């Protein structure tokens, strides 16, 4: 099975709109939303949730005040200053390292497993989908990304689908690293701005670091064609395949407002035509169809 992961470095360049568009034309695929801390793909896919699971990961310390003698050892050892002067653990600051729990001479610290969110297996009008919701202010997004991609692959295998389309998170940190490992290829959605270029260069470097073949397309190309060209030149220098240019087109926003993919909303718009071209090239390059 092949997996295409759409990432961008910079947020808001159009990853999800593009992935949704691909989903509406790709044959035989499952979908996966790996942007677990601000997941948006479901807003277009309108999934019918068939399975719902808790995501438990990591632990969190809590001090039992009845047993605590306030000796202060935990406060001394905690490198995050998560324990207050009156010996309460701030759950937002607690890293879950367990050092206080391990060393407490009174065994006054509990260290239960933490619920960090939920993940779902769903059915959509374009095929099965695995998605998740990381609890607000929670940690372990990388682990949830790894889990949801694994579940996405299982969904595809179960129905004999040859392709998993994965919507990745922005940035270059832990959830992005978790999105890339073992992927067949990644499509980087760039925008022709100074920040778009800067962020794309870093994410190209990241893909190379993890040896995932990278491709790039440029959204809102006409906003700054010189910058767009500079991005394409950089891409070619780094052996990143240039997949195409998408013009600035309000069709993206209009389709999103109606919960539709751009092809469903207006498949003859300039934006749709450009994305169609990119998809056809993807099918050919990845030998999917």
């Amino acid at each position, binding site marked *: 099975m092949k997996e295409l992961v759409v990432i961008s470095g910079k947020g808001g360049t159009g990853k999800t709109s593009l992935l949704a568009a691909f989903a509406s034309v790709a044959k035989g695929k499952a979908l996966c939303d790996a942007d677990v801390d601000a997941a948006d793909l479901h807003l277009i896919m309108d999934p019918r949730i068939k399975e719902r699971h808790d995501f438990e990961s990591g632990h969190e310390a809590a001090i039992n005040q009845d047993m605590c003698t306030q000796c202060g050892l935990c406060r001394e050892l905690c490198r995050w200053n998560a324990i207050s002067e009156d010996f309460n653990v701030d759950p937002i600051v607690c890293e879950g390292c367990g*050092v206080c729990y391990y060393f407490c001479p009174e065994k006054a610290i509990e260290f239960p497993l933490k619920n960090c969110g939920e993940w779902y297996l769903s059915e959509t009008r374009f095929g099965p989908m695995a998605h998740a919701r990381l609890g607000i*202010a929670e940690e372990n997004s*990388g682990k949830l990304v790894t889990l949801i991609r694994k579940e996405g692959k299982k969904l595809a295998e179960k129905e004999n689908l040859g392709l998993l389309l994965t919507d990745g998170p*922005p940035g270059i940190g832990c959830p992005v690293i978790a999105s890339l490992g073992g992927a067949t290829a990644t499509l980087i959605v760039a925008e022709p*701005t*100074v*920040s*778009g270029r800067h962020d794309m260069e870093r994410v190209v470097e990241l893909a190379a670091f993890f040896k995932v073949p990278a491709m790039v397309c440029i959204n809102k190309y006409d906003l700054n064609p010189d910058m767009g060209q500079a991005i394409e030149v950089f891409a070619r220098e780094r052996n990143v395949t240039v997949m195409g240019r998408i013009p600035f087109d309000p069709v993206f926003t209009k389709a999103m407002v109606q919960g539709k993919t751009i092809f469903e909303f207006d498949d003859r718009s300039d934006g749709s035509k450009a994305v169609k071209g990119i998809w056809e090239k993807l099918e050919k390059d990845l030998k999917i169809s």
Partner: protein
Amino acid sequence: MIISIASGKGGTGKTTVATNMAVSLGGDVQLLDCDVEEPNAHLFIHPEINEVKIITTPVPEVDMEKCNLCGKCGEICQFKAIVVIGKTVLPFPEMCHSCGGCMEVCPEKAITETGRELGVIERGSRNGLEFVHGKLRVGEAMSPPLIRKVREYARPDALTIIDAPPGTSCPVITSMKGTDFVLLVTEPTPFGLYDLKLAVGAVKILDIPCGLVINRSDMGDDKVKIYAEKENLPILMEIPFDRKIAEAYSRGEMIVDVMPEWKEKFLELYHQIEEMSFHKNH
């Protein structure tokens, strides 16, 4: 006072608001770019960098001459960052959260700490505005420790503006926690609204007063405004879509440079924030 600028959804205009507000204000102002995965503020501020520091986080190093293979280090480690395999101890520095537990627990005092590079912090200025940002090393997974280091540059006597990363998980929380006001930049689209709700949830957990900036305010629908009204979230500024703004942004120019009339609006935005956080604290 510390104002953090966050969003939930990426690409809504955090950096635009942070940089334009920072340069519009006079006096002792500092801009800390805490989006260390993809820092962008410097592309608009063009600071003269005069300090570069490599930032590391402590990770264990084992002296095998002293180690008796008791395995306590692997037992305490919650992150599978150190394991005893056969007759040796293998640390996995990239998994390590730097809690120091293995070093503390080792009965033979065989573990010391060395550093794993997280990235760099650069500090500089432009026209009296102090500028600091962190740049996560490509391949490094953990951004919060670097973000904490950037935040250490906040001076209590200055007005500090923090450009936060997108999302609602640990990097964002690390950037917002303990700040006096959160300005949430959103766009009036279904994605913008959904992610805004998550961001508002995070701000509520942290119990920080907040307000909204709606960017490209004429492009989507009116659901963000309806939500804001229902939740009593003040809309402090609206920036309509203007191709001139978008093109200037693409070249690394700030709104206040190409359309100087906006300077007054960013000042007004700051005054509203000042008033709201004053009421909260008095």
